[in-house]
């Protein structure tokens, strides 16, 4: 405990340096003849996973040179941006398709070159791997592509750098995926790298995509070494997934202590993320008597055993681990709102009160709690909740008007 406290103090200084972005720009580069599933697969993955991570907002958009284009012969698409007005991307997605003239277009080439330099992650799908050629990013890394393209890649690249039989190859900044539907897997891996493994898993479950299995691809570097190095060099800005994936990798090697440390680091760097505690619960489950449930199990408790039981577990967890987050902000809001819809206001009040306790900086949760209390005619409690909320949101008009309504009654 003393050790970890010391660690915490060390980290506080580096927290200031870490440049953690809230919104990440996810650019889907499209063109006339682009293969539909090549870019919509990753588009769906990022759009859906944006819901499951409470660390980032994924701003997904399409960019093209053309003003209007057709994909798969049938779908007429208007891109959100052109090459001049597109925002700088954090994740650049390069899909395959009937791209002959686009590969040779100098304007496109120079745009892609700049974007690759600027982005933190690049994902290619199918023949999209050839967009890496002109900027000189294809040499020296391990890659994969569609089964028809693999032999051609082998003609120009070192044979051992071209990997078949895999859904994706992660070479660090650049991830290449195999053909068409493999872009879904490549994108889920990318989400693991950025927002965490469990966020990718939840996204796959939402998409009803049981084929997702991280081990069907290949990661060509040592995740654990990478994370260890990051711990030593505190200057480096990083994303949540770095320690998270390394943690799961360590868990798979039964190195629970190391896994624990990685997840613990994430809980310090990303204090608002329940996902970090999900990993911690897994890492600690066999070493101590009682570990709070993972957020998924906890949601099941709220759904199946009721809010009362949930509150008991919540109180127990807070007593032993004061900082532990049992649920994500979004999950608790949805649960509470569903209870309101079911007219189970009492349970909703309990759920929202836990939400406010865990996420006191969320105005929406405060207001939902107050409204539940008003509906239950608990005006004294509602007034207390308003004063609590006003501490975090002084002079907030919505809160003040609620207060006025209560006082006039």
């Amino acid at each position, binding site marked *: 405990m003393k050790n970890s406290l010391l660690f915490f103090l060390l980290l506080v200084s580096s927290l200031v340096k870490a440049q953690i972005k809230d919104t990440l720009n996810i650019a889907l580069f499209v063109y006339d003849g682009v293969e539909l599933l090549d870019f919509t697969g990753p*588009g769906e993955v990022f759009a859906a996973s944006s819901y499951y991570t409470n660390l980032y907002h994924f701003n997904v958009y399409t960019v093209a040179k053309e003003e209007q284009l057709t994909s*798969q012969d*049938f779908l007429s698409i208007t891109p959100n941006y052109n090459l001049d007005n597109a925002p700088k991307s954090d994740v650049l997605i390069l899909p395959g398709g009937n791209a*002959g003239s686009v590969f040779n277009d100098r304007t496109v080439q120079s745009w892609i070159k700049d974007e690759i330099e600027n982005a933190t992650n690049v994902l290619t799908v199918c023949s999209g791997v050839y967009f890496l050629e002109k900027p000189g990013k294809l040499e020296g890394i391990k890659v994969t592509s*569609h089964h028809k393209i693999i032999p051609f890649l082998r003609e120009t690249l070192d044979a051992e750098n071209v990997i078949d039989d895999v859904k994706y190859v992660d070479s660090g900044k650049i991830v290449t995926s195999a*053909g068409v539907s493999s872009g*879904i897997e490549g994108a889920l891996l990318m989400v693991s790298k950025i927002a965490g493994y469990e966020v990718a898993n939840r996204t796959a479950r939402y998409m*009803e995509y049981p084929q997702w299995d*991280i*081990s069907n691809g290949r990661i060509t570097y040592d995740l654990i070494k990478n994370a260890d190095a990051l711990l030593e060099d505190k200057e480096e800005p990083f994303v949540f997934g770095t320690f998270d994936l390394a943690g799961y990798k360590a868990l798979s090697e039964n190195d629970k202590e190391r896994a624990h440390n990685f997840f613990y680091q994430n809980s310090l760097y990303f204090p608002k993320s329940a996902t970090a505690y999900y990993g911690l619960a897994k890492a600690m489950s066999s070493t101590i008597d009682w570990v709070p449930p993972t957020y998924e199990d906890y949601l099941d408790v709220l759904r199946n055993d009721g809010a009362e039981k949930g509150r008991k577990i919540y109180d127990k967890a807070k007593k032993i681990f004061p900082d532990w987050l049992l649920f994500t902000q979004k999950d608790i809001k949805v649960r509470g709102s569903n209870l309101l819809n079911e007219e189970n206001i009492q349970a909703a009040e309990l759920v929202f009160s836990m939400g406010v306790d865990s996420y006191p900086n969320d105005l929406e949760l405060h207001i939902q709690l107050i409204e539940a209390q008003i509906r239950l005619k608990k005006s004294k409690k509602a007034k207390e909740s308003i004063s609590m909320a006003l501490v975090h949101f002084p002079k907030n008009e919505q809160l003040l008007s609620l207060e006025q309504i209560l006082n006039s009654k």
Partner: protein
Amino acid sequence: MSFLGPIHFGNFETQYNRPMNTGVQKKMTLILLTFQIVIYGQDASNMDSYGYVCPPCNRKCDNIKFTEPGICEHCNMELIKEHELMDYPKINRKRIGFYLQSGVEILDLAGPMEVFAYAGYEVFTISKTKEQIYAQGILTVTPDYNLSDAPEADMLVFFGGNSVLPSKDMELIQWLKSQKNTEYFFSVCSGALFLAEAGILDNKKATTFRYVLDVLEEGYPKVDVIRGARYVDNGRVVTTAGVSAGIDGALHMVAKLEGLPKAAETAFYMEYDWVPNRGMSFADTNPYAQMNDFSILKQYEGIFKTEGESEIILELDQSDGQLNMVLNGKNHPIFYIEKDRFLTSHASHLLTFQRDSENYVIEVESTENKEVFKRKSNEQ
């Protein structure tokens, strides 16, 4: 708990350590146009000068021109000279109408469109008005038709994503009810609500996105809601579960209408890990009838070897009638497509078997590595 189970990372580096030798250097005939353009730096307009095409097969490869004679890798037919096309009857392509509402889930529509396009159908998009549609807030699509000018479709398809309110739109539902010449109705995810509202699912079995199952059941008591199926086929009406289940549903439609081989080739092209027959069917026709026929599968059991050390073992699981490829002691199911052709569970690669003059299976070749594995003679 998650259906992915506990953390099953396995070994990151070596998951598919297959015994097969993967050194493929066999030069291929042109398949992806894009690709040749990259390699040889040719312009697309030069393509017209090439003289070979595959006979009309109603697949996307109908549009590909080849530089030299040979076999089309998409449909396995022998290539013909372009002018010989006139000798073939024109194929009547099925027309599929995709109804799009604003907020439609992008993978819901993209998965089936990819499948149907590759399988050779003509797909068009319809919406209430022709105004642009924002799919999941990220993709801007311009529909081809509105309700008043949409042509009749052989199949109409509805998708999830913001479908609850639009499914109550009486003008749309009236239009849907009036499509008397449409033979098939297909829905992905919560798109089932449109079909339910129009009464198309009445007294039929249907499924939908797992979070919408209750809504469908409570809102439409005449619908027999099935839980846990990837798709449900009633013959003319097929409904699928959520999002990516639309890909399985569409592959099923292709298997049903064009035969299992075409569906398998589509899955292979898409590198989609397809498990055929994973849905529930109450239809009269069954494209998978022979898939688990013990007497057929038995002919392929045995050990197959390359001239080198690579080896494939095919073993029939008598309990479930599943033929498995055994690799490193692990069973990988393979699926019977048609006589002497199988689909593997990894990226839908295709296995092709050869027989000798006595009709005995003697060798197998996989699209995965193009090597010929000969059956060990002592098996005979």
